[in-house]
């Protein structure tokens, strides 16, 4: 059908207005670039805004937390898949990133003795130092900052779906970004933007698993599909983080977060449907380990009717002296989560007096566009740039977290790499000379205009439902080769039906067209996930292959799986070798970890009174004195 096209010129297009997008837009704008932010949701309404709001800030609790220590924590947690340059950049920039948030209005609680922001009392799992800062109102505190950074001075379109990056294909060198195409649903027009730089910061893919996810609806794999179609490589797409402790019921709350490994406290354990412990020392485990334990128990027929297991925190609150400390810790560290727990399951559950029925939920994609530490799209050997002018930041990029992301790191990641991408995109715009090539835009637009009106069979929204069910079953928290075969057949069939889907001719907010666009992005992304999951035939980190053994992190050479589109429109899979953390660096971590687990085990075996005293001492040394009365008063106030 005919739909009006509006032409615009910018230096930089930023796709997405969450943590990464707003930081990118702000940095590019500060560097003098003319920036357009494109967001399908209202500005700032992103995963950053709805997160628990805990941010990694290196050395926030002491100077012994060096850049090397933090970077190594990321790489070891990620099974050496995170790249050295990217983890070094992360470790270098956490403090600047946090200062950026604060200059946009984030006001942490202060540690008045130290005259600096208060740090959470326990190191989150996999962090060897305490370095996580929580905030009143959780992610909302950061959401206001993102909103401020964009709304204050940058051009933006919301209710606008970014369709594709437009590139010029060069035979004798890398392709070049020419700009991008947008469907502005609220005005019912296409917008064609000429711009030499595009930053992809449009989040993750968890909506492929809806409703088993705790993230924003907008996570329809747009980032990865855009990158693939623009000719960029993806890495680590099989590595999708499932938060282990999401709610199995009631229906309106399904998938929402109930807690983190660290909030299991010193005595939290996981149990199967019969009450048998399937994982102890939960507090010291990674999210991947906990999720895998639940998935394997369910697979072995030991799960509940809702395919979950029980998270049992009762041991923490049974102790008279240390119990109040645990409760206070829980309600301070994850206040938003505890409010949800109380609404969904009631007061006894919120006081941890009964077990919680939980199941993993999709939360974060560790993989993404293959980039260097300046967020530039790269190919093999870090050189070999596939597309000039293409950047990715935040969840859209790969290489930061590998096979497992540590708690509280993504909110830093968005601001860190958003700023890096924004600066790079602005610098390129100063020197790049894009040629006017309207025909490249028009050819693409004509295809989208065709799709905008389509007589046919299936409604795109219903195809989305089918795809979501298949994603959970076959490329979800547990995978097998047979399952992947079934999945690939389902994807092929859905693609065929999508090409014949029913879309009414309507320019203004055409919901079927929107569902179709997102379906196509989910299909492209799901196919990349499936290929990577097939290629990695052993379990590693968040990737659980029920039909393969565990990958040894001690021996063997680590590699990332790379997926790209080949010239014929198919997909190609290859490997990128990653350097291995030397055994002598790895061993101390393994020993320290074993010691911590042993110490928890010893605690559990002690007489209750002695256990209570020791745990109380540990909490008190970082939290100060806490009494039963304080905690009860706080909980009552929170409930009111």
């Amino acid at each position: 059908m005919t739909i009006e096209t509006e032409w615009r010129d910018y230096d930089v297009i930023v796709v997405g207005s969450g943590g990464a997008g707003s930081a990118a837009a702000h940095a590019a704008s500060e560097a003098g670039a003319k920036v357009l932010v494109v967001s399908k949701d209202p500005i700032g309404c992103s995963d950053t805004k709805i997160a628990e709001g805990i941010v990694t800030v290196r050395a926030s609790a002491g100077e012994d937390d060096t850049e090397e220590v933090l970077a190594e924590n990321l790489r070891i947690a990620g099974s050496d898949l995170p790249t050295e340059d990217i983890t070094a950049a992360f470790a270098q920039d956490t403090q600047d990133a946090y200062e950026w948030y604060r200059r946009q209005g984030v006001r942490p609680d202060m540690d008045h003795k130290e005259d600096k922001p208060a740090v959470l009392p326990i190191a989150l799992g996999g962090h060897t130092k305490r370095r996580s800062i929580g905030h009143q109102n959780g992610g909302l505190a950061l959401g206001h900052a993102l909103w401020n950074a964009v709304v204050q001075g940058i051009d933006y379109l919301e209710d606008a779906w970014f369709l594709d990056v437009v590139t010029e294909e060069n035979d004798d060198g890398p392709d070049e970004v020419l700009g991008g195409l947008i469907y502005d649903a609220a005005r019912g027009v296409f917008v064609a933007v000429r711009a030499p730089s595009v930053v992809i910061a449009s989040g993750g893919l968890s909506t492929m698993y809806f409703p088993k996810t705790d993230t924003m609806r907008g996570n329809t794999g747009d980032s990865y599909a855009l990158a693939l179609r623009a000719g960029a490589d993806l890495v680590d797409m099989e590595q999708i983080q499932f938060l282990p402790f999401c709610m199995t019921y009631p229906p309106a709350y399904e998938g929402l977060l109930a807690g983190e490994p660290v909030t299991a406290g010193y005595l939290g354990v996981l149990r199967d449907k019969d009450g048998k412990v399937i994982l102890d020392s939960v507090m010291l485990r990674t999210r991947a380990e906990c999720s895998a334990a639940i998935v394997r128990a369910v697979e072995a027929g030991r799960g509940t009717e809702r395919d979950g297991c029980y998270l049992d925190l009762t041991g923490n609150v049974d102790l008279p002296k240390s119990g109040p400390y645990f409760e206070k810790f829980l309600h301070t560290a994850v206040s938003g989560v505890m409010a949800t727990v109380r609404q969904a399951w009631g007061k006894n559950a919120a006081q941890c007096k009964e077990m919680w029925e939980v199941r993993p939920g999709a939360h974060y994609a560790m993989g993404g566009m293959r980039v260097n530490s300046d967020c530039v799209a790269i190919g093999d050997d870090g050189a070999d740039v596939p597309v000039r002018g293409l950047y990715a930041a935040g969840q859209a990029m790969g290489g930061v977290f590998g096979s497992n992301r540590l708690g509280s790191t993504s909110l830093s990641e968005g601001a860190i790499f958003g700023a890096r991408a924004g600066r790079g995109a602005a610098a390129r715009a100063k020197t790049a000379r894009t040629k006017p090539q309207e025909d490249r835009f028009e050819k693409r637009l004509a295809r989208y205009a065709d799709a905008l009106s389509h007589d046919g069979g299936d409604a795109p929204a219903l195809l989305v439902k089918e795809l979501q069910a298949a994603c959970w079953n076959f490329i979800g928290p547990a995978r097998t080769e047979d399952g992947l075969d079934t999945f690939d057949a389902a994807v092929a069939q859905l693609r065929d039906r999508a090409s014949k889907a029913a879309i009414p001719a309507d320019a203004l907010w055409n919901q079927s067209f929107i569902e179709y666009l997102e379906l196509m992005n989910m299909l492209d992304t799901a196919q990349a996930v499936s290929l990577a999951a097939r290629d990695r035939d052993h379990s590693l980190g968040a990737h659980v292959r029920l039909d393969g053994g565990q990958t040894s992190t001690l021996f063997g050479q680590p590699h990332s799986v790379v997926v790209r589109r080949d010239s014929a429109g198919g997909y190609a899979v290859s490997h990128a070798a990653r350097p291995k953390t030397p055994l002598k660096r790895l061993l101390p971590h393994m020993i320290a970890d074993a010691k911590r687990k042993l110490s928890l085990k010893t605690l559990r075996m002690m007489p209750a009174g002695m256990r209570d005293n020791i745990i109380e001492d540990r909490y008190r040394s970082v939290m100060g004195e806490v009494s039963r009365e304080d905690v009860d008063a706080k909980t009552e106030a929170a409930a009111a």
Partner: protein
Amino acid sequence: MKVELITVRNGEERVVEYEYKPREEGERPMALDVLLQAQATELPDLAFRYGCRNRTCGICTIDVNGRPRVGCRARVRDGDRVSAPATLPVVRDMVSRRDGVARQLRGRLPNGLRGNDLEVAAPDDYHALTACIECYACLDKCPMHARNFEDGEERRDASGAYRHGNPFSLLKLQRIRLDPVADPAEKAAALETALALGLDACRDCPGCKCGVGIDLKRKVVKPLVVAAFGDS
């Protein structure tokens, strides 16, 4: 359970009666659950906004029986009527056009706060206002916001921003006045902006209602009105 959904296509309103099928015995669904199920079954092109399903992202606001509610936490009953927020122009079905609200603060709040000391704690009220999820439920019955639509004509400037304010914008401005990092000039500018957006409308208003329970009247409107007009 029957719920009435008001669909809007090309400006034309229709009442669609949707029969909700409970997913477990005795389920009391939220308005968003009804919309999701309707879209997944009989009304696949139903347009509505949602994000986190956890009362935080602020975008699933709809009207239930004519009153604004956060859709993911608004339980509905047999015979209830769900429609787009009536305080803003409807684009399609449950989707209203929101972006004229935030745009009115463009360039009117401090951006960056360079050089100020960050190592200070904010007062409790600053955090109380930070709980705002931008659901725009507060636009309901707001006499200041209503000025944007007087005589049936929508008042936006060239950038698309509404000329007259609303409790959300006032909250953002009062937040600057409570921010220990903002300097006096920025705080004074925030009050000027509140006046320019039509703060005088608040003087005779019984008060606004927040979608997530922030005491807007006492923590936002009153301090601004007192500072501007000396009223108490």
